[in-house]
């Protein structure tokens, strides 16, 4: 049984359009694949740099933690030294007073 005329018409039209596009149709698909691959590669590269940035963000917290603890303990140490000097000075004055 012969296919209907409209189907044959459509097939002719597709053949005509393909003859116009020709190898460009293959090029378009290839370009699109290349583009998708490039986007995926860019995403992966950005993800890798993101991992490093994330590590830096975490390390920055560790650094701030270390610095603020150091600052606090340095102040405590300075206060301790100040008390020691005061005590030493007082001891000296007392010694001189008694010595008189």
């Amino acid at each position, binding site marked *: 049984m012969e296919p209907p005329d409209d189907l044959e018409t459509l097939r002719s039209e597709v053949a005509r359009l393909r003859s116009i596009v020709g190898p460009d149709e293959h090029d378009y698909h290839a370009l699109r694949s290349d*583009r998708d691959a*490039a*986007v995926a590669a*860019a*995403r992966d590269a*950005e*993800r890798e*740099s*993101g*991992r490093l*940035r*994330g*590590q830096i*963000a*975490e390390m920055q*917290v*560790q650094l*701030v*933690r*270390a610095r*603020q*603890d150091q*600052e*606090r*303990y340095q102040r405590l140490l300075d206060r301790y030294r100040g008390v020691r000097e005061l005590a030493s000075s007082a001891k000296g004055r007392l010694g001189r007073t008694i010595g008189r």
Partner: protein
Amino acid sequence: MTTLSVVTAVHDPVAEHLAACLASVRRQGDVQHVVVDDASTDPRIVALLDGADAIELHRRGSNGGIVTASNDAVERATGEWLLLLDHDDVLADGAVVSLREHLAAEPDADVVYSDHDLIRADGRLADPVYKPDFSPERLRQTNYITHLVAVRRSMVTALGGFRAGTDGAQDHDLLLRLLEAGARFTHVPRVLAHWRQSPRSVATDVANKPQAFEHGRRVVAEHLARCGIDASVEVGRHPGTYRIRRRADPDARVSVIVPTRGSTGRIWGAERTFVADAIRSLLERSTHRVFEVVIVADPSTPSPVIDRIRRAVDAAGAGLVVVGYDEPYNFSRKVNVGVRASTGEALLVLNDDTELVEPESVTVMLGLLASTGDPAGEVGAVGAKLLYPDGTLQHGGHVYHHELMHAFIGWDGDHPGPQRMLAIERECAGVTAAALMTTRAVFDAVGGFPEDLPLHFNDVDFSLSVRETGRRILWTPHACWYHFEGRSRDRGASMEEWSRVARRFPGGEPVDPYANPNLVPKRSDWLELPGRSGAPPYVIDADGIKRWG
């Protein structure tokens, strides 16, 4: 004065550790210390207990396990409150005084928990764990409460004490049953207990008690079943966590509200039309399939963009509503207009500059929202994990700790976070509206988004309004989008916007019940106040070797 009974089950701990435990209770003063020796075989332990002052010692004839021994201790306790203490842990000096002060201020409390730190192998205190106020969803995902816990004795006995067959997870099981019974949990934000890192403890190495995690999984599953929550439970990726997969109604109609002006930009080296790609990624990848897409489009939105969206919507068999918006830009108003034009019971407010990462995102969020009758309380809104294009974290839940912030912004997107808080579903002070799901009932109850906050902080205000209704806001890492933040509009908050939202807080200063006063204000990375980090310069491993860093 409130009477307390410390209950301790003992079975062959390191003798020095037990001695430290007993001494720490003696130093507290007027408390009953009930010690049940669960048939210890070590003669040093037997001798230590025989010679111990100020304990009520009961010896079991045979080893019954932690649950049986603990129940024996509970039976012999006479105090109004029970304080659970493991045989190698240590109470902080003044712990009981702090507890009594707290109980005087919170007479309706039924459970009190505190912060804790660890006792390292060399005896040094380290790694304090500063906890949030009561977070039932977090408690289901991990026993974040651990030590120290005090419970009203009448509630424990009414529940029948610890349950047989839950050894290793018996505390978690008890806490979940207390939650079901309507117990009021309160939190003391101070370190009141030191948790021993002995070579045999779970604190040191999770491989020490693999059965404990399976018991924990079963305990959580049974709890959810009793609560009428249809879900499966798996042991989580991170030790001590559990992954709960709630079953959501696959036929629930989700209205996706997307304010847009059809802008474009370059992401990963390629041009994209943000709104079209956002909707395409959702419709193509989502495991949930019933959507109504509501675009609230500025007049500048090109018609080819709408056509692309229409094609994607038709291909997915979803519904599409396009609402024209011809007024000055106002995100809140656009959302409200979109919701009015929608018909779904579940509303997903979604920024146009997003791309779906996790296919189960919508299913996960729907499951969390279905909380009617949940003893933990109804959920009013759910937020998702958002990533920058480089995979770093853009949104891990809001933190309102003296500032309005995104938790752990800039950290690696896969990082579990301190206390594994980025690996579990948990309560938050708020979530961003870049990807926020709520119900129409909640949306209407709070009056929608605040139109006097056109650009910034509208999601903060919305979150505060939701919480004021007594509902919880949850953040989940299992729903995830990329968010190309700021690429589709200009940024920068005004002083007026800041003042408007700051007025919602007492004294104009943001507060967050899920942060902790021991954390540095205005930081979102859980940094402790100076001198409270307890972070040692080195760690000592199981072989007693110092490792730096």
